[in-house]
């Protein structure tokens, strides 16, 4: 049956729930091969006969159209224009305002160039544009769907109260949920449990990512649990039990295996917050902001997806002593430290807390520290 086109459930905010794959089907049915083509070069200009046939006009008219409707009619006929220069007496309000703003900047700013955050943001946004794989089997198919997801950070800093930082990831409709799960880099995965003040050299056996492998996505009443490894537990079970224990107003919540589903299978609302939970209690809000057909200017190498196109720059905490290196240790109840907790890089930590023989000096508790900015 023909599915209805997605539309708002809450005006301008989020849509009704719909099956992702159905969107792809609907579009592919309405469009023709030229629309869906991912060929690099655009079609050559049509011959007049083809135009005449398509529009139902005379070939002479087609020739006329080609001349009259040429884009040259709208472009500058003058010699090379410098697009950096706004014409002095522009009739366009946009330009007059822009010129004023630019002039103001020139007066006030000494050096006007991209800061490193801007460079990073732009690079991330555009680095994969138009990339094609060497291996043709890795080329994305025509008619593939591209989803844009905002995955929010779980880090709770006071300064992030009003604008929670997020990453933006592009994912293909034909990709499995597990591929997205594996691509999400969260600092809590790297945590190393344990107190190591007595044995600082003992490299911890496992990071949390290896120890606690369970995770789930929650979309539209279904929990998609990662069950690829024997250690994986169903983290959603307790939630489902809770909702079933009384009439709490939730419809039948289900639990299924994450690895069995691709994004095309899901029913989703665009613009509606969902959940990704891992490490037992590390929760990320996920919002699907856009779904559309793949385009020849997108990155067409399947291996690069899920593709990270935006992330939040987090300032890393520096060592209290040298103020240069990122902190790798944190101490509590440290008799040698001026603050509690106190952060140190590896070198300063050892120099302060241990003597030349490696004996522990003073009283303290030491934990390996992974800074959230580690993914910068």
């Amino acid at each position, binding site marked *: 049956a023909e599915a209805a086109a997605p539309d708002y459930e809450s005006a301008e905010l989020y849509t009704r729930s719909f099956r992702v794959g159905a*969107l792809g089907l609907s579009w592919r049915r309405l469009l023709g091969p030229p629309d869906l083509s991912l060929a690099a070069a655009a079609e050559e200009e049509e011959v007049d006969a083809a135009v005449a046939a398509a529009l139902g006009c005379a070939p002479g008219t087609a020739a006329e159209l080609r001349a009259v*409707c040429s884009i040259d009619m709208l472009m500058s006929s003058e010699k090379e224009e410098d697009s950096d*220069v706004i014409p002095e007496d522009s009739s366009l309000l946009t330009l007059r305002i822009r010129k004023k703003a630019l002039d103001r900047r020139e007066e006030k700013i000494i050096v006007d160039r991209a800061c490193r955050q801007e460079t990073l943001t732009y690079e991330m946004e555009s680095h994969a544009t138009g990339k094609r794989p060497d291996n043709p089997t890795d080329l994305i198919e025509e008619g593939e769907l591209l989803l844009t997801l905002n995955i929010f950070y779980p880090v709770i800093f006071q300064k992030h109260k009003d604008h929670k930082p997020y990453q933006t990831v592009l994912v293909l409709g034909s990709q499995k949920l597990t591929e997205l799960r594996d691509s999400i880099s969260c600092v809590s995965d790297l945590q190393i449990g344990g107190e190591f003040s007595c044995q600082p050299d003992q490299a911890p056996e496992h990071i949390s990512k290896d120890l606690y492998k369970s995770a789930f996505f929650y979309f539209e009443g279904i929990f998609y649990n990662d069950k690829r490894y024997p250690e994986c537990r169903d983290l959603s079970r307790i939630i489902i039990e809770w909702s079933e224990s009384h009439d709490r107003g939730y419809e039948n919540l289900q639990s299924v295996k994450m690895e069995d589903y691709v994004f095309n299978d899901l029913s989703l609302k665009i613009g509606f917050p969902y959940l990704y939970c891992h490490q037992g209690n590390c929760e990320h809000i996920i*919002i699907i902001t856009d779904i559309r057909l793949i385009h020849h200017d997108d990155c067409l190498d399947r291996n690069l997806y899920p593709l990270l196109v935006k992330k939040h720059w987090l300032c890393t905490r520096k060592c209290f002593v040298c103020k240069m290196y990122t902190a790798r240790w944190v101490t509590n109840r440290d008799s040698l430290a001026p603050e509690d907790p106190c952060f140190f890089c590896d070198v300063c930590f050892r120099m302060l807390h241990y003597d030349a023989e490696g004996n522990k000096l003073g009283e303290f508790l030491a934990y390996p520290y992974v800074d959230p900015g580690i993914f910068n």
Partner: protein
Amino acid sequence: MSGVPGLKEDFEELLGAFQQADTVRFERFAELWRERRFHTIFYGRIRALERNKLTKKTLDLAQQYFFPPYSFQIRVGALYLLYGLYNAQLCQPKQKIRIALKDWPEIQKFQLDLLDSQHYDAAYIFRRLRLARAFHFTAMPKLLTYRTKKKIEENYFKEEFKDPSNRVNSLITNDVLEELMNIHDHYQKMKCVISADKSQPDKALSLIKDDFVVSLKDITLEHQEWQQNRMELLRNSKVTNETEDKKKEEIFLQSEGSERANALARIKYKSYSAVVEVSKSRRHRQVQLESSESGSGCGKSPSRSKKASRRPQPARRGSSEVRGEMQVARETVTQHIGMPVIIEEDSDE
């Protein structure tokens, strides 16, 4: 997303001029575009990141004029506008025009209308855009990020709907004044009872202004009158345009649609409907507000397209036109006698 400053004005000026030119021919649009050197709209020393954002917003705004409830002529103009903007942009690779699945049937219908009416230039240009793969075929027109930001539409409504709540009137209501009066009388009576002269209170007991309730009433009344006058002022400047042009609203209102679409259409329509005095050089062709034919896609040949006899103009001049009428309105406000009927906030029109 905040808009690009000045962009809406420039678009509406160009589209308004196109509408006034009374044609759907691309040639005419191209003339107007070249006159304004519209291809420079992306100029200025802008770095790549900012330029991408700016171009996306520009295309997004232009795209909105391509759909109902705008009139056929405006929609054709929007198509030409998109064609120009898409090709004039400086981004590499080019930013695309987003089309949502729910809007595609509308576009199909539009295309058929174009072909039926033999507006080949418009159909050709749409075809060119499509072959150039200038579109992103999406689920929804905009990215939805669950941001509950104030939307641009709100600005439109601010014009139409009345001003926010009248705090004074909601505090000093009829009931409040009546009760104050009662208490005041009772107080006076009490004072009399304990005074030597039973007919009036002792001088020593005179601690408040006797007429304070009446003064309060007068001040509130004054405020209310001022408020009403202000509303009349605003309303009249709209009403004169509205009553004359009500029949022409058809031109903008294509669909039976929702109330909101109608309100939006009315507001957007208004920016093209104020009357201006023609310049001296064209006195022989005074502007007349005639009723034009409505409807989409009508007119078998380009030469018979609608007569648009209104010109867009800056708001300032429009209001000066109607000032004479506003004077009259002010004088006819009735004077209240005695206890005023202070209308509660909700019952105002």
